[in-house]
């Protein structure tokens, strides 16, 4: 671990932007931004080799603050823009940051088909279980029975598991972390960026303002305690009986496999067609 973590983070920030950042006090997005910067620093990549694309939502503000090649795109379309960049310039390391609503509701089809195609991208999906910026409407990952602005009597729909959806859709690398387990998160993001193929990191984050307040977890500390008490690492989960694992979520690497990459296959097609 580097000796001065915060100093390292400042190396990558755009200090001419308005700081402190726009997110609420204690928001997990700030922790994730720090984790992403540390992971990139450990990989030894320069600022010009990285493209960070985002959609709309609180997570969409993330590229504004970091000094990479950045894109703040339309709602749900971060992956489509990223796919275009990767096809045009495969040498770049392309990372997308999306929220749970952005990735699985508005951009749901883009997400599963990017996973199916196996484009060499990294998708970081911040799952705070709610549409935070627009006022706390329920999202596809809001748990059954919890409360939201549009579900004041309890939510009657069932939640997506983003990581499991990504595994089923064919992503080459799938990991899940939380903002409480920051050191695991650093390693997951680093492994995901290094992975050749479509890699997904689902990050359980805290929106204590829109989600927590309506569900008896009104501050970042109680939400982080909830993450600590309800998460089990993949290694531990293997040894536990399945009844102990109901209501809990696993963290760590959920899938890791080698597959032909879209950009390389596309180059082969061009060769075959005699370009």
């Amino acid at each position, binding site marked *: 671990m580097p000796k001065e973590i915060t100093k390292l983070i400042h190396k990558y920030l755009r200090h001419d932007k308005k700081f402190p950042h726009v997110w609420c*006090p204690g928001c997990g997005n700030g*922790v994730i931004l720090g984790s992403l910067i540390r992971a990139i620093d450990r990989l030894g990549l320069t600022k010009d080799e990285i493209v960070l694309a985002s959609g709309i939502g609180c997570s969409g503000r993330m590229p504004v603050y970091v000094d990479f090649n950045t894109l703040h795109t339309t709602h749900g379309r971060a992956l489509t823009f990223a796919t275009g960049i990767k096809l045009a310039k495969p040498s770049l390391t392309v990372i997308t940051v999306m929220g749970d609503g952005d990735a699985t509701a508005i951009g749901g089809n883009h997400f599963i088909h990017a996973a199916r195609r196996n484009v060499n991208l990294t998708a970081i999906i911040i799952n705070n279980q709610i549409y935070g910026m627009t006022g706390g409407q329920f999202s596809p990952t809001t748990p059954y029975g919890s409360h939201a602005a549009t579900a004041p009597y309890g939510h009657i729909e069932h939640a997506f598991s983003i990581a499991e959806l990504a595994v089923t859709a064919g992503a080459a690398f799938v990991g899940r972390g939380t903002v409480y387990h*920051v050191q695991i998160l650093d390693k997951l993001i680093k492994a995901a960026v290094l992975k050749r193929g479509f890699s997904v990191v689902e990050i359980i984050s805290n929106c204590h303002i829109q989600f927590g307040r309506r569900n008896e977890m009104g*501050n*970042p500390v109680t939400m982080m305690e909830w993450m600590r008490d309800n998460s089990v690492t993949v290694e531990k989960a293997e040894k536990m009986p399945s009844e102990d694992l109901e209501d809990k979520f696993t963290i760590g690497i959920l899938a890791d496999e080698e597959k032909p990459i879209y950009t390389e296959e596309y180059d082969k097609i061009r060769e075959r067609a005699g370009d």
Partner: protein
Amino acid sequence: MTGKKKRPAVRPEKGTQRNIPGKPSEKQSERAKKRYSHTVFKDWCKKCGICSSFCPKNVIGQDEHGGPVFERPEDCIGCRFCELHCPDFAITVQELGPDTVGDV
């Protein structure tokens, strides 16, 4: 019943030294103990309370507005939980060299 007899607590009188087997002597622990300095960048701190709530050694307290105050810096073990979890990059923990004199 555990069958274990509770031993009466023996406290050394004030001012006396006692060697506890298995524990490093005072000289050793003095050498091994690392010291840390902590800086809070108050302009960026939003007083969310994550650092003061999760500090494993209760080094960090809160002022009247909820902002962090490093009350017992000498107890810090350098886990950097506060620095890693600060969403606003407002805390810096620095290891002090053995030559640093004065209070941390």
